[in-house]
């Protein structure tokens, strides 16, 4: 049996063998694996079913094991975790494992054998662990059956360890590589028993990532790096005011510029320049006279959006997310009501790899080399834009240079396909400049929140009303799923009555409702989604209430958390880690925050100092209970990264709207965290077992409120909108 591994795998294997060797300068462009002509049969042959044990597992004669990964890797490390899940049940030698990426066209052709490829919402592991482990177990059973058949013995008399099969009675052995071809014809038993978690040997181990080495010598080809024969490079520009239109442009002004091949309208809002190189296309685009019909949205500003949402803080709304008792009535007659308003600005995903897609359109099909978090949706987008049925389309999925939710949208796929369609037979890489990328994001939605709480004589919370007024992501992405009673389900993350996004406190009377206040700036799923805003609001306000009652913020929380033992456990862990019960060093002040999100329980504690109006975050302690942990060192890496992602909006980042457009177009104005401000971080993984929680997102939400609460402890100042400004600390 000869394994016909795909480009990515060949590349990986060769880079592992010859790690960091021989990648010197060569004249002439690097050519990414590419098959002419565009031919569906070629795809079918290239991953012919005969080279695999089952859809997930390919075993080569040299004993290397290829595990197919359907979900998307964008840095979060789940590629390795997914492979661990398969390998655990497969009982193969982990040191011989490599991976291959599944293409959506192939998945379509094989009747969705790999399930959903969509990757977001911290679901890659928790949404596929069961069928992946079953896939590994089925492959193991087939390989054992093949060995048993060769020996003429019962499969039940054989055992396997690290890919070596042993016939127990006789002591004979063989290997997966030797029986793999025969295994292909076996039928796995219907009732596959999965290992008890106590028996796991690969799941739960801090194995190294499978996808590291080609990131360290520059050999990994990202979407922006794709190159192929006869390829041209396009730079596109879309009306900077969302909803505006392209009125006209003067192509003659740039047609003579070096390298420029074509200047054309892409659609109602976008113009493109196609050149021999990105640099030539970009230079020409900078020089192209363009006229926009910006429309009425050009009058919108951050101030007008804030005003509109402020009105929503007290307006009537039909949308209720969580109700216990009758908070409104209690608040009406309450003697002591505490009120506070909070707000959170737009954020951009700003992944380091700007958007790019390479598309080859012919009159019979369409092929794309590009990263996407939703291959199925990208296929549909490409199909529609290309005019070809999905069966005539294919996407070569790629590992992504950061995404954080940005490539859940497929706007760049649409533009790249429309550009390539104007140049049949020529592969065209359409690239977005950083500025274009910043102007046309899918922004973390802008919201505000008003709290009203009543306290009784003993300082107990009688009632709490949480009113969120803000932009609803679902209104833009899946408007038909906005319901009459709850409105946008995403709006209540972290404040829900039950489930993956449940609130971690019990109040006798609680009302969480939402006034949808949308604007033309398109929102999207930014890593952590609405959990981030809601945690900042809730965890800051809980601190406010503790202060009002004169209680210790941790003790005050504990009283409200009696029915939430898992939330309490992670809170207690960070309380212990930060040393809450011992005095802080001179000038150091502490704050905590906790929440449940994406199925996991997370908490953070911060130590800060504020000296002469200058904030320094000295230390952060995190605790996270994800139920099971597949790869602890990667979970820790995600917690580190979550703090960085969550502290950037707190300290620096904000997208504002001026004249209807996003004002920040690069990292000089959209500042993000760098090493200089990175605090010391201590991560405690406290998996309690019995459930599968998400990893990539939840901790982001507790970073900012833990620090804000520590700032309050340091200064007595309650900061209710971010990013923090100098005047907040003076």
């Amino acid at each position: 049996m000869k394994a016909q591994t795909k480009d990515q795998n060949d590349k990986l294997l060769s880079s592992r063998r010859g790690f960091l060797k021989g990648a010197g300068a060569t004249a002439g462009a690097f050519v990414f694996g590419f098959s002419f002509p565009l031919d569906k049969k070629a795809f079918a042959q290239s991953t012919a079913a005969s080279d695999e044990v089952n859809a997930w597992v390919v075993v080569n004669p040299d004993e290397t094991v290829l595990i197919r990964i359907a979900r998307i890797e964008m840095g979060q490390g789940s590629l390795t975790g997914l492979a661990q899940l398969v390998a655990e049940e497969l009982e193969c030698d982990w040191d011989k494992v490599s991976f291959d990426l599944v293409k959506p066209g192939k998945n379509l052709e094989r009747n969705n054998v790999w399930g959903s490829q969509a990757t977001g919402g911290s679901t890659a592991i928790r949404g596929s662990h069961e069928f992946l482990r079953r896939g590994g177990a089925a492959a193991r059973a087939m390989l054992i059956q093949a060995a048993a058949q060769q020996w003429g013995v019962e499969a039940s008399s054989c055992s396997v360890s690290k890919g070596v099969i042993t016939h127990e009675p006789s002591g004979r052995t063989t290997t997966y590589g030797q029986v793999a071809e025969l295994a292909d014809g076996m039928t796995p038993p219907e009732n596959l028993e999965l290992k008890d978690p106590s028996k796991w040997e690969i799941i739960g181990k801090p194995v190294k990532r499978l996808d590291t080495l080609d990131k360290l010598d520059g050999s990994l080809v990202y979407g922006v790096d794709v190159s192929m024969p006869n390829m041209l490079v396009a730079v596109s520009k879309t009306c900077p005011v969302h909803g505006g239109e392209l009125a006209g442009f003067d192509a003659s002004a740039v047609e003579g510029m070096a390298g420029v091949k074509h200047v054309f309208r892409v659609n109602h809002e976008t113009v493109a320049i196609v050149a021999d190189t990105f640099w030539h296309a970009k230079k020409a685009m900078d020089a192209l006279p363009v006229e926009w019909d910006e429309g009425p949205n050009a009058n919108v500003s951050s101030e007008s959006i804030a005003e509109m949402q402020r009105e929503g803080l007290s307006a009537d709304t039909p949308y209720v997310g969580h109700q216990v008792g009758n908070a409104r009535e209690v608040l009406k007659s309450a003697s002591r009501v505490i009120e506070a308003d909070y707000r959170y600005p737009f954020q951009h995903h700003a992944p380091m790899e700007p958007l790019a897609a390479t598309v080859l359109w012919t009159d019979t099909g369409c092929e794309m080399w590009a990263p996407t978090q939703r291959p199925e949706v990208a296929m549909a987008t490409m199909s529609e834009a290309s005019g070809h049925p999905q069966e005539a389309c294919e996407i070569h999925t790629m590992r992504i240079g950061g995404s954080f939710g940005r490539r859940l949208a497929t706007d760049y796929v649409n533009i790249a396909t429309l550009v390539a369609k104007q140049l049949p037979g020529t592969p065209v890489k359409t690239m977005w400049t950083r500025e274009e990328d910043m102007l046309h994001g899918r922004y973390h939605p802008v919201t505000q929140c008003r709290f009203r709480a009543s306290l009784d004589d003993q300082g107990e919370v009688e009632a709490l009303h949480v009113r969120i007024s803000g932009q609803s992501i679902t209104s833009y992405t899946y408007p038909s799923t906005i319901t009459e009673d709850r409105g946008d389900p995403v709006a209540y993350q972290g404040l829900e009555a039950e489930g993956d996004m449940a609130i971690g406190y019990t109040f006798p009377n609680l009302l969480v409702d939402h006034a949808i206040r949308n604007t033309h700036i398109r929102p999207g799923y930014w890593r952590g989604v609405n959990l981030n805003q809601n945690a900042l609001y809730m965890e800051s306000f809980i601190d406010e209430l503790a202060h009002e009652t004169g209680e210790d913020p941790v003790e005050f929380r504990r009283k409200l958390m009696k029915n939430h033992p898992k939330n309490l456990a992670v809170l207690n862990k960070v309380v212990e880690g930060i040393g809450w019960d011992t005095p802080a060093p001179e000038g150091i002040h502490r704050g905590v925050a906790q929440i449940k999100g994406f199925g996991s329980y997370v908490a953070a504690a911060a130590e800060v100092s504020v000296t002469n109006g200058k904030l320094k975050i000295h230390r952060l302690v995190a605790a996270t209970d994800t139920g099971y942990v597949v790869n602890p060192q990667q979970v820790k890496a995600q917690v580190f990264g979550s703090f960085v992602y969550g502290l950037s909006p707190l300290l620096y980042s904000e997208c504002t709207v001026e004249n209807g457009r996003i004002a920040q177009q690069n990292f000089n104005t959209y500042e993000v965290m760098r090493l200089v401000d990175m605090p010391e971080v201590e991560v405690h993984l406290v998996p309690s077992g019995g459930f599968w929680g998400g990893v990539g997102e939840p901790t982001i939400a507790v970073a900012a409120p833990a620090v804000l609460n520590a700032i309050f402890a340091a200064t007595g100042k309650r900061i209710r909108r971010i990013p923090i400004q100098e005047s907040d600390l003076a």
Partner: protein
Amino acid sequence: MMKLNVNGNIVEVDAEGDTPLLWVLREHLGLTGTKYGCGIAQCGSCTVHIDGVAQRTCVYPVSAVTEDQKITTIEGLGQEETHPVQEVWAELDVAQCGYCQTGMIMAVSSLLEQNPNPSDDEIRTQISNICRCGTYPRVLEGVKLAAARINENES
């Protein structure tokens, strides 16, 4: 045509003088390990060495480089033997998405060349590359481990 010394090879390049070195490396020489991140020398993804010193190349015109200046890109850094920074980066699993890491490795290897024993503060202020995945804690650990290893090898 201009001549450049890239990773020990003299190569001829046909590009306008105002073309940033980044795009000459990527589009004329096919060395795509050097990344485009911002185009305004803010993020450091485009870092290479010129005569051993870290240089952000996205705003650095190719005309400013002479033939006798040695340009080293990430592809050339570990050409002869794996650089200790790359070695440590693999050991600690520093990279997440990896996009900024080639520039990060070039910045770190240059720092250690100039300053074999950087303090925490020196590392923090001198490695200003942006990583959106947030690998900073492992970058810090990695710089210190690489420094120790380089010093050990030289003693």
